[in-house]
């Protein structure tokens, strides 16, 4: 019993780290420019397909797939910013929602048209199988995703708090006009923010692809968790997303095991709503 319980908690932590990795891009874009990117899940989906194409064409694992997905998605992030976001940000909130939602559908059904609707999968041992530590099983692919989640979170946090670039980005987020008067170009800063956010999302996708199925609608399945993670962690807070991701992962695993998988979402979401009741800004969000 206790033995299995340890495995449940370990599994929950690894799952939570993936949720955190998945959500970091979403929270960054929100923090930088108050835009909710409904296409976020589909960015992750694109990252997964990059990993898949890299594997089928080059036989390469995440060592090639992950950097390439980061690069390609970062480029897409810049294109999306200049092509769509910059303009709809001037419109009402509804325009942002529908704009990014339309983008989500465009991406989803382009992939659907190109790759078909079949479920795809990468080989299970692409990232070196599974460790067995005193009977506790840890999948190397999930561990890698977990470690990368920690590193990405730390790197993003340091970038925002310790570098000039980070200060400039935060300045634009705070007050774009004032920043402009100080000689900072809001456009470039926000484009960089989109590149970083989309790049992190592509990285997440390429790593998640090593242990999850790949299908054009996968962004839908994983997307809801990302929004919950980000609002629990506090919109805009990168460390908040990490803590929230881990928390949700463990609570989900424990309640799924102890109470039953059908009820785990009820447990997670009632705790979530209950928490927001007391602290609407989330764990680490600004008031």
């Amino acid at each position, binding site marked *: 019993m206790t033995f299995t319980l340890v495995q449940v908690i370990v599994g929950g932590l690894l799952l939570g780290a993936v949720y955190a990795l998945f959500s970091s891009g979403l929270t960054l874009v929100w923090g930088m420019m108050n835009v909710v990117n409904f296409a976020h899940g589909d960015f992750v989906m694109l990252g997964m397909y990059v990993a898949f194409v890299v594997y089928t064409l080059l036989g390469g694992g995440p060592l090639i797939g992950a950097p390439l997905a980061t690069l390609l998605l970062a480029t897409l992030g810049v294109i999306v910013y200049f092509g769509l976001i910059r303009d709809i940000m001037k419109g009402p909130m509804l325009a942002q929602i529908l704009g990014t939602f339309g983008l989500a559908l465009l991406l989803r059904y382009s992939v659907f048209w190109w790759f078909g*609707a079949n479920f795809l*999968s990468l080989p299970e041992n692409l990232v070196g199988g599974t460790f067995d530590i005193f009977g506790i099983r840890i999948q190397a692919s999930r561990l890698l995703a977990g470690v990368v989640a920690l590193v990405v979170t730390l790197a993003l946090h340091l970038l925002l708090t310790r570098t000039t670039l980070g200060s400039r980005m935060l300045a634009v987020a705070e007050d774009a006009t004032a920043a402009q008067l100080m000689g900072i170009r809001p456009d470039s800063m926000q484009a960089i923010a989109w590149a970083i956010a989309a790049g992190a999302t592509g990285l997440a996708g390429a790593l998640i692809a090593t242990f*999850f199925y790949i299908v054009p609608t996968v962004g839908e399945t994983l997307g809801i968790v990302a929004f919950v993670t980000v609002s629990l962690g506090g919109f805009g807070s990168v460390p908040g997303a990490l803590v929230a991701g881990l928390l949700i992962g463990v609570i989900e695993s424990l309640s799924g095991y102890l109470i039953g998988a059908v009820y785990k979402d009820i447990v997670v979401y009632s705790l979530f709503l209950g928490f927001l009741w007391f602290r609407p800004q989330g764990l680490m969000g600004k008031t």
Partner: protein
Amino acid sequence: MRFSHVIGLFSAAAMSAALVGNAAAQSKTVKIGGIFPMSGNAASIGVHVKHAFDVALDIINNPHPELGNFPLAKNGGLAGLGGAKVEIVYADNQGSPATGQNQALRLITEEKVVALTGAYQSGITLTASAIAEKYNIPFVNGESVAPNLTERGFKWFFRVTPIATDFARVYYEFLNDMKAAGAKTDNIAILHDNTEYGASVANTLTTAFKEKGIAVALDVAYATNATDVQSQVLQLKEKKPDVVIAISYTSDAILFAKTMQALDYKPPMLLADDSGYSDPSFIKAVGKISQGVFNRSSWSVGPAGSPTAIIAKMYKDKSGDDMDDTVARQMQALFVLCEAIDRAGSTEPAKIQAALKATDLKPDQIMMGYKGVKFDDKGQNILASGLIIQLQDGENYVSVWPKASAEKTPIMPYKGW
């Protein structure tokens, strides 16, 4: 036009393409509505069924003498209606019962279809067929197995597929034979999602086993389209059942296979209930780590040159995938419906309904391994039956039970990877 506007336009186009189905209309054809998941997580099913229906329409609308006695194959079009061609108007149910219902309404009132088929997920067949019943339009279903669909006293609903109660019997007899051969089958766990399909099949199996004196020791339910199934697999691993019966759609089935391998869990026997485990993309994605999984099926390719082998090849050429049980049952339903329309010699719904009630197809007139097609008062095909198949090499299912139709002997225990 600026670049941003181009992107905006594309986004708008994508949204409208996703929200609005195609509404092509032609006269002097027999229009049948097909409601299937074309988007959402079961979209692969919709893609498969479209290819299968293209093949079926080719067989119905063009002469295919090589298919021998197979109904509607010999001449082009429906002879009973002066060679009228059949056309399918598709609608996307988006994996949602509410959408399925709206689409049924649209197909009947706006597209003026004479009959409906679909809708894959039992929960959506439930709502879509209720609309058909209200508008007195025949609804022929080929693949939804939730028992209650034919327990509603409907007059316009006909179901060709065997259902959960039929398979409870098949599973019971199969497990009995396996027990006689030395396998342990006393401790049974049922793993299922919480949809209409998963819940009702699990319930039917539990009840049927109970009547035979077998208690289902463990019932593991989960919400469909799961992001993670580790806790469910650990529950099974801890309780060590002899037999795990898995009732899952494709996405969850793939996740279970991957998670079982990651957590090193192999039940002695894994018995799947069709759907996800029959999807060719399940086999391609995780077949190699699911070796030895048992499954139910009513489809078998048959000897070379037989109508089933010819149809299977036409489908493979069209879609690139092998024919699976689910898509074959959907195709069979379309043939049953068109045969009835042909016999009715009319597109009047009431006449089609009467013809469906009088349907009496023999085994050599159908593509499935049923004993025939004949509906009872509830609209259920009483001659539907099935067999047990096994994914022995991780690439192709072979029939293993009952002995009379077995290509190979069953291999125990579950090998996995």
